[in-house]
């Protein structure tokens, strides 16, 4: 019987982001399991307070931390409980994403520092056999 994560869009990980005040801080959010490939679908970032107006982040594999979610500005996150949905924008010429192979590590990276505010990153996606 296949894993649930192979037949639905499932919650791949739920990760605490300690702060948004440290430039270039990286947080591991997922490691692709052995003999699997992963396609991330979208992520939700829930915040514990005001991130400020300048904070930007990216998400991608270790060493190329913007190859799934490019530079994204968090200026709309003003208060505890605010949430943004992070995903490539659908269009008639869709943006390229990637599959990630077994053992690839996905990271959340602060690319412009904001306030010292924690968050929770919920990553959703799908797994398939490699």
């Amino acid at each position, binding site marked *: 019987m296949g894993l*649930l994560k192979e037949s*639905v*869009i*499932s*919650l791949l990980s*739920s990760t605490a982001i300690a702060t948004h005040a440290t430039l270039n801080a990286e947080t591991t959010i997922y490691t692709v399991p052995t003999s699997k490939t992963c396609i991330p679908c*979208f992520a*939700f970032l*829930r915040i514990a307070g005001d991130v400020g107006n300048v904070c930007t982040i990216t998400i991608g594999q270790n060493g190329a931390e913007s190859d799934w979610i*490019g*530079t*994204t*500005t*968090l*200026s*709309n*996150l*003003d208060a505890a*409980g*605010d*949430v*943004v*949905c*992070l*995903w*490539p*924008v*659908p269009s008639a010429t869709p943006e390229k994403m990637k599959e990630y192979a077994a053992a690839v590590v996905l990271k959340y990276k602060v690319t412009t520092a904001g306030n010292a505010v924690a968050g*929770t990153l*919920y990553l*959703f996606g799908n797994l398939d056999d490699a």
Partner: protein
Amino acid sequence: MPKSEEKCLALLSTTSVDLNAVAATVLYTVPPGKTMIPAFAWLRVSATAGALLAFTIGLSTALTDWIGTTNGDNLDAAGDAIIISPVPSATPAKIQEYTAGEIISIDVTVAVGSACTGTLYLFGFEDDA
């Protein structure tokens, strides 16, 4: 064992909505001890929604705080459906978590003008509060 709503993007509710009445209809109540983040919704109609239909979705006391005013004029025939979601962008629109006991409703702000029933499928996920 965790509920599927905590491990998947899940169908949180399926609700029949009278689209010919300016009124709010309850879609979902967050369970005790949980917090909920909605992801998107589908609205399927039983007949043409004409060119008038407008609605919002949100907390019962802040009915636009998830989905602002949205038009249904592309719903032309029975079985047509639309996807309803905040538009992704490089500066994402703020949405929010909903806490235990909070009620999510759809608010028809401009009625269709003729008999039309919609079915609203709400998708999202829950986490421990």
